[in-house]
């Protein structure tokens, strides 16, 4: 999966969230980390052809940004307007891509719903990005939302790291089984100095894969029985 990560943040180097995500990138996948603030020219403009070439080459685009006044930092709007100029028809050859937002929030995600302090849901507030994707014939995927990164416990950060890697590399939306097979595959890439431990790790990956296969069989049987039931 060729994934282009468009990072829209005025100070990526000073953002713990962005630095964490950058350090989380899996080494083996076809990923490109594209820091928009570092890519804009000294004249304040993007090189349109170069940006379009990056988009053309990607199968999935990630818009990654903190939420400022219910939108992305200005640099993303600037990139959109300077890259996608003129009539939308000229971008028909780009149809079929996927777009996903990776959003960091200063508040808890639960505050973004009717009745809570932010009052509006993220699905409502992110609508312009969904509309942008749909206008271009791209599939809009459910966003990955990171609420109050600095308050996350260590175990939550580890979980986020894997969620992010799976978002970047797996067909989406990924099923429970697909996520399990992904874990087994990635476990097999780890290297330990002790051969006995390496063997144990291989056994863990095999066991996991077998249990996922058992789960898939069980689900298939259940589907058949449910389909055959008459009420």
């Amino acid at each position: 999966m060729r994934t282009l990560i468009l990072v829209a943040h005025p100070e990526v180097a000073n953002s713990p969230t962005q630095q964490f995500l950058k350090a989380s990138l899996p080494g083996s996948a076809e990923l490109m980390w594209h820091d928009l603030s570092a890519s804009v020219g000294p004249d304040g403009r993007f090189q349109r052809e170069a940006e379009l070439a990056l988009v053309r080459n990607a199968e999935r685009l990630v818009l990654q940004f903190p939420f400022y006044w219910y939108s992305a930092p200005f640099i993303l709007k600037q990139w959109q307007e300077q890259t996608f100029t003129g009539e939308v028809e000229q971008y028909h050859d780009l149809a079929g891509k996927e777009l996903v937002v990776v959003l960091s929030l200063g508040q808890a995600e639960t505050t973004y719903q009717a009745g809570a302090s932010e009052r509006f849901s993220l699905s409502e507030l992110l609508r312009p990005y969904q509309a942008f994707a749909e206008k271009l014939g791209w599939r809009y995927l459910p966003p990955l939302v990171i609420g109050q990164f600095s308050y996350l416990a260590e175990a939550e950060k580890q979980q986020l790291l894997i969620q992010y890697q799976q978002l970047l590399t797996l067909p989406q939306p990924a099923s429970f089984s697909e996520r399990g097979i992904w874990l087994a595959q990635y476990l097999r890439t780890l290297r330990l100095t002790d051969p006995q431990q390496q063997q144990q790790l291989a056994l863990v990956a095999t066991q996991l894969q077998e249990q996922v296969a058992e789960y898939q069989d069980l689900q298939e049987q259940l589907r058949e029985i449910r389909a055959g039931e008459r009420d």
Partner: protein
Amino acid sequence: MDEQWLQQTLAELSSKMPQYQDRALLAATQIYVTELAQRLTNGQGELDGRIWNHEQW
């Protein structure tokens, strides 16, 4: 080899991993294994329940 063996082995291997990314992968696998075991139990229970559904006899 069951869930307990998997959990124990994953925890032991995690302490041998110097890289943060690798420990995160093992931690995520532990969480996954817990959920997988629960789903297998639930699925097996549902299968038994549906097979023994007297209304379908």
